[in-house]
């Protein structure tokens, strides 16, 4: 039998239902895996006591015939950007030192209500700002996959801890947040499924804000089915978040296994980049062939404003962040570094409390909103954003989903691109456009590169059409048959990267 923490959520759920094992057994196995996997630095805070309490409560419910649904008794990890009642919440930042919320984020509360068992809080880039999980105050996360010569690789970011935990077999699922690719890109780097729902599908209430108009919570899992199951337990309208959509939670699993016969898959020509590794492009072609092989029709489409998405994103997101992070001032909670005046205290606290990348983005954001620059940067970026959204709307008049690569490369070594923020930002080049348009998107592990490292393919769907997204993703997953595992790599790379 597969080791407990390596089970999919669906399989674990069936085992619990059949009485093959208890939630407590499953949880204890995950807690042990967490302990033996600590070298990944995937967790900032482990919560074994809470986990066992919830697992026992789940077993009691099940014994009473009151099991809450497919997530009941499933151990999961929570990105440390979600506020969790009574549990240290850091956002990966020094500035939130000792901050223990008196409230539970809506998404983690929904999961709790569905019976999910919280194992702990996962590491992340500071305030979710990063694409390699190297900006955390709590140190970098290691990708369970190793590079040539056993080199330590980044897991991607910002939800790097969540991705590494799932890929490393520490837990069957985790939640992350995605602002410009922070779920999908680490999922691609770690060889797992990562899904960003439509903006407004999941409540942002209780999630430490990075860029409010872009932030969305989503699942990181081993299978597409698991992502659909988890999202079902996370999503829903929340009156406490004005941007939460008043739309009922769909049965996200509805289209799984139905195949893609007759589905129209758009291939945006602008996603071919100069200097993109051949294996990424080859995998993309392979993905088209897989879907065509199952009866889908691939159609070339154009998203003409794609090239402006990344620059516009790096104006809009820092602008919002500069304002969202103003509340970390040392006055009410978290770190305070004393100063002789109020301004001195602000400067000392924020200077010491924020890392380089956060400071960089606060400065960029402040600059683009400043008098005299607002029109040239922020306003212009918002116009670009409207045009990007229109590109997608027009493309979706012809097609049901779009297929692209998730990231322009596989995972790179820890320490690489550290001194070149622009190279780092390019990691999100394929994921950012969907974020700017608020569209649901998913990364599915599809193949390995020449070094035997995982690569993902990326699907984007219409707003609130997660059902179609999951349907296409499950077909892609089936065709790719990705079953490589870190540390147990086949000698011949799979997929299109041969």
């Amino acid at each position, binding site marked *: 039998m597969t080791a407990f923490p390596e089970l999919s959520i669906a399989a674990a759920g069936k085992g619990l239902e059949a009485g093959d094992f208890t939630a407590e057994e499953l949880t204890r196995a995950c807690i042990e895996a967490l302990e033996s996997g600590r070298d990944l630095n995937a967790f900032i805070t482990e919560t074994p006591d809470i986990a066992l309490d919830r697992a026992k409560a789940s077993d009691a419910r099940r014994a009473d015939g009151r099991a809450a649904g497919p997530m009941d008794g499933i151990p999961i990890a929570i990105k440390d950007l979600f506020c969790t009642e009574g549990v240290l919440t850091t956002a990966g930042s020094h500035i939130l030192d000792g901050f223990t919320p008196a409230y539970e984020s809506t998404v983690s509360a929904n999961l709790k209500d569905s019976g999910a068992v919280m194992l702990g809080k996962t590491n992340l880039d500071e305030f979710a700002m990063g694409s390699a999980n190297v900006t955390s105050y709590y140190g970098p996360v290691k990708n369970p996959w190793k590079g040539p010569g056993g080199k330590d690789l980044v897991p991607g970011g910002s939800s790097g801890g969540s991705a590494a935990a799932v890929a490393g077999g520490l837990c069957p699922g985790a939640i992350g947040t995605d602002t410009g690719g922070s779920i999908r890109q680490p999922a691609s780097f770690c060889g797992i499924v990562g899904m960003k729902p439509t903006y407004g599908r999941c409540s942002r209430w209780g999630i430490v804000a990075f860029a409010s108009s872009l932030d969305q919570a989503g699942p990181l899992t081993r299978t597409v089915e698991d992502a659909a199951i988890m999202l079902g337990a996370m999503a829903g309208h929340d009156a406490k978040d004005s941007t939460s959509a008043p739309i009922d939670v769909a049965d996200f699993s509805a289209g799984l296994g139905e195949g893609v016969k007759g589905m129209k898959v758009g291939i945006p020509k602008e996603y071919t980049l100069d200097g993109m590794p051949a294996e990424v492009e080859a995998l993309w072609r392979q993905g088209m062939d897989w879907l065509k092989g199952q009866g889908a029709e691939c159609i070339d489409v154009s998203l003409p404003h794609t090239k402006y998405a990344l620059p516009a994103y790096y104006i809009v997101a820092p602008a919002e962040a500069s304002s969202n992070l103003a*509340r970390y001032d040392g006055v009410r909670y978290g770190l305070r570094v004393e100063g002789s005046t109020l301004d001195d205290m602000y400067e000392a606290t924020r200077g010491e409390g924020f890392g380089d990348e956060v400071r960089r983005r606060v400065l960029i954001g402040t600059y683009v909103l400043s008098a005299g620059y607002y029109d040239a940067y922020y306003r212009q970026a918002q116009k670009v954003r409207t045009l990007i959204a229109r590109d997608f709307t027009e493309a979706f008049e012809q097609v049901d989903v779009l297929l692209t690569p998730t990231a322009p490369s596989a995972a790179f070594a820890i320490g690489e691109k550290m001194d070149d923020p622009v190279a780092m930002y390019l990691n999100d080049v394929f994921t950012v456009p969907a974020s700017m348009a608020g569209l649901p998107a998913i990364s599915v592990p599809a193949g390995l590169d020449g070094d035997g490292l995982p690569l993902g393919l990326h699907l984007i769907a219409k707003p609130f059409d997660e059902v179609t997204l999951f349907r296409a993703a499950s077909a892609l997953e089936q065709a790719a048959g990705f079953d490589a595992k870190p540390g147990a790599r086949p000698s011949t790379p799979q997929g299109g990267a041969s």
Partner: protein
Amino acid sequence: MTYLISGESGDWEVVIGLEIHAQIVSEAKLFSGAATAFGAAPNTQVSLVDAAMPGMLPVINEHCVAQAVKTGLGLKAKINLHSVFERKNYFYADLPQGYQISQYAEPIVGEGTVILDMPDGETREIGIERLHMEQDAGKSLHDQDPKRSFIDLNRSGIALMEIVSKPDLRTPEEAGIYLRKIRTILRYLHTCDGNMEEGSMRADVNVSVRHPGEDLRTRTEIKNVNSVRFVMQAIEYEAERQVEAYESGEDVVQETRQFDSTKGETRPMRAKEFAHDYRYFPDPDLLPLVLSQDLVDHIATLIPEMPDEIKQRFMADFGLSANDSGVLVADMDTADYFEEVANGRDPKQAVNWVTGNLFGALKKAGLPIAESPVPPESLGELLDLVEDGTISGRMAKEVFEEMMATGKDAADIVEEQGLEQITDGAEIEAFVDRVIAENQDQAADVRNGKEKTIGWFVGQVMQATGGKANPKMVNELLRKKLSG
């Protein structure tokens, strides 16, 4: 009414615009459910949102939106069906979010008009530029500890309306009348209680001076003035200061100033206190505020009869002067009170009683008209007793004092104390005869043409009757008996 400051280079005209911050009457704050009661212990009315805890999000209070729309309609202003909340970014210890949520480029209410009732009975129209909603900051307490400042977040997030006038005001008095008129309108609408002492209304005053006919010159802004009197004083001082500056060849600097009420002067705020680049941008936590015309139409049905309309009606229906009407409608309770007294009675009497005796007695007792010990129906009955001759006007004043003191009805007091007027001619004649008999010398004076002494006789007869004789009948009888 002209208000010109004379200088060596000629006369100077003052140009004034007011930004009034009015706290919206609401149980809950603009973006959170926390309570808003005045005077609560520090930091007892603070939600997670008001304290800007991580991950907290604002949710608009629809009641406050309706209040803003109602106010806009009361100011005869354009209601914008699409408006946007923006963030005004600056750091201060009592601003937990590091930004104030306000409206900037797209406010909920656009241009409107306010009519001022001037003391000479004339009216003046003042333009409203806009009205927008915003949240208040908390309060910094610097006097609790020698070294530290304390923060009270009870006010943090409280809903305010900022009502911006056009620079149409020309005198300190006009500014005072404008401020009072806005307060009257807000109180009629019940959208702001107008209590400046409690901070529910305060004004930023923009002042500049110019030679009549010139373009506008540089203005200064006097922040947070919290009484009508101070607004007028601040303008007087600031206008004089600017004139002196120009006359001595200096320039007026565009700056933010504060008014020192103990010294009666304005002075510049430290540059740090206002030199902000607020970096406004639309708040991504909030969707644009979209109203339906149906909602606006519905709110319009909730607008009571407004003071300008009541004033016109009082002038038309009761024949009151513009001035009397203006005084009565300045307060909704007074207008209601008056109307109840005046209905079916002599309006002139009603005005005199309400604005004279009643106002005086209430002022002495320190009571608002709504808590008057003499309710309008009782005052009306008192007037009826005068009108039908039961008591004299003079006696009515005494009865009224008694009513104020005891809360009893006029009729009861008159009966208990036997104050009915003596209107029986024979009874009065007996008194008149007795008084003449007792004062033969003075009677001779009258007969010899000393008219004035008749008045003295009236007084004597009234005194003899304990003030109860009908003075008109006394007068007539005396004239008849002493003429000849």
